[in-house]
């Protein structure tokens, strides 16, 4: 029950800052690489991850992980992930096809895991409800 309530809070919290239409919550991508930078910031926190491309080049992924207060509620601390850490990230990718996504689960080399917001949201946040013609509202 707690998880459900928290998850609902997350959905709405994510929706609070901006539309979540940029990510495809029905898809999952797993990447592995070295953390280049952690932005522990509002309105969203990010991990910049450097992965190896097919041709030996480095690819920089931007992975949204939540926001400081949300992440604290999910068990993170500011130094949970540090530059230089080798991690695997399972994420829901951006619809744009760019190396950009929102974190579902981060796994360290020793097997420890940290959840991102998307892990708590089955199927992703709900679509915005359609606007319907306004019925007569009650006056004051």
């Amino acid at each position, binding site marked *: 029950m707690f998880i459900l309530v928290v998850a609902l*809070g997350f959905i709405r919290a994510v*929706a609070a800052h901006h539309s979540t239409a*940029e990510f495809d919550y029905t898809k999952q991508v797993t990447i592995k690489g070295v953390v280049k930078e952690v932005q522990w*910031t509002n*309105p*969203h926190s990010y991990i910049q991850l450097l992965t190896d491309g097919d041709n030996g080049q480095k690819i920089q992924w*931007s992975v949204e992980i939540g926001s400081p207060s949300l992440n604290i509620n999910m068990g993170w*601390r500011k130094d949970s992930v540090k530059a230089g850490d080798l991690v695997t990230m399972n994420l829901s990718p951006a619809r744009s096809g760019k190396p950009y996504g929102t974190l579902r689960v981060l796994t360290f080399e020793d097997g420890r895991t940290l959840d991102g917001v998307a892990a708590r949201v089955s199927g992703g946040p709900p679509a915005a409800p359609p*606007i319907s013609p306004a019925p007569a509202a009650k006056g004051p």
Partner: protein
Amino acid sequence: MRRLYRWGMVLCLASLAACASTAVDEARGNTGPAALFGIWVPDAAPRSLLTADGKAPPLNEQAASIYNERRQRLARGDTSFDPTTWCAGPGMPRILTMHYPLEIRGDSNRVAFIHGWYRWFRIVDLGTAAVDPPLPLTLGFPVGQWEGNTLVIRTVGLIDATVLDASGLPHSEQLTLTEHLRVLPDGRLEDRITLEDPQTFTRPWETVLTFHRDPSARVEDDVCPDRMARGEPAEQVPPPGRQKPPAKPVARQPVAAAGNPPAPAQRLAGMWEPKTFGFMVPNAPLSKAGQEIAERNAAAMQGGRIMHTAWTSCRPGAISTMTMPREKIVILESPDEVTLLFEMPRMVRRIRMNAAHPDKPQPGYVGDSTGHWEGGTLVVDTVGFNGYAELDARGQPTSAQLHTVERFTPAADGSIDIETTVTDPEYYSQPFVIKRSWKKSPARHPFEYDCMENPRQEDFENAYFVRERYRPTCMRVEGEGMELSKVVCRKPE
């Protein structure tokens, strides 16, 4: 105990004229906690902090290297080490060094510093044990206590992304601030601050900031990104030598002296949080013009675009803050004002009690609010909006004709029920009511919502701005390879 006694005397004097003469002084605000209350203007607003005896702070070797590099950047006009450059949180004590007035208000549980720069406020919890910070904040976790007429504040949990002053003086998250605030015999406010940070300084050191009263000073609803969009700097700094000299000491005006209206029962005072998250206002009776905007917004969202409203562009208005609050809301009550301090979105609303609206209120995001009690209900009437606020996350519009009447009623279960009657003939065919409810927060201390902290480029790609004003001036751009990201601000065209 002493604190309780003092506050007891203040409240006593507010309602009974026949108290002891020594306490009359206290109630008139000449001594005691109330002496600190009111609006203060910095004497000097220094760009560089110095020790109390005018020397450079005792930086260790590593910190000195960081500081020197920043000073070289500053000489080139690069202030990107200072988050205020893109309207993010200044932190402590940087916010006290800005050339903006601040107002101190409070009650027996907390003291609030309401700053003139971009809606920041600092809540100091009184009489509680030190907090073990769950996450670092720009203003940290301040805990205060009265020692005689001096407010002593100890602050931990300060995020290291901020700078101590405009010259880039660094600090680590081990920083502890101990402030001694008191009114000097000449009427000025002194904040004597001890900085301890073994990762940055070779020893603890002390700096002193002073403030004076200026009856003409006001703490306005400053919105930094609007100033940036107009091509103005994020921080207004008077040219060197043009700073106002310290004003002659001005006797402070009594806050709650005998003869004034009685102090209110603290019916709403405390820390609250929304009972449920409300991000939609369903079935609002949109007019034709309102319906057109709502349909345009819906089409953009359904097309996968990221919609930006005033809320998401860090300019929330009173109406959207009331319909879509998250996190904590601190309420302070005094005879002349009920003050609402919102954590997320960050905003200060002031409700002037038993007052009239000005004939032509200056249009703004928070409007002009007046209040009175009808039995157990606080009724708040607000006009003077600027038309830049959306009712909800779908971007239902409001205009400058917006007029709200809010009724705050303490409920039997200890919560507050709020009914807001919205009238806006431009976008709505008839008045309608939005209901929200807040419950007492179990939290020790509010967090912060530093909305402008990280304006990521990705958030503004494929974006749909409900109003042109909401376009960002600054964006964080990712560096290539191992080059770190940085926030870049453009000059408006």
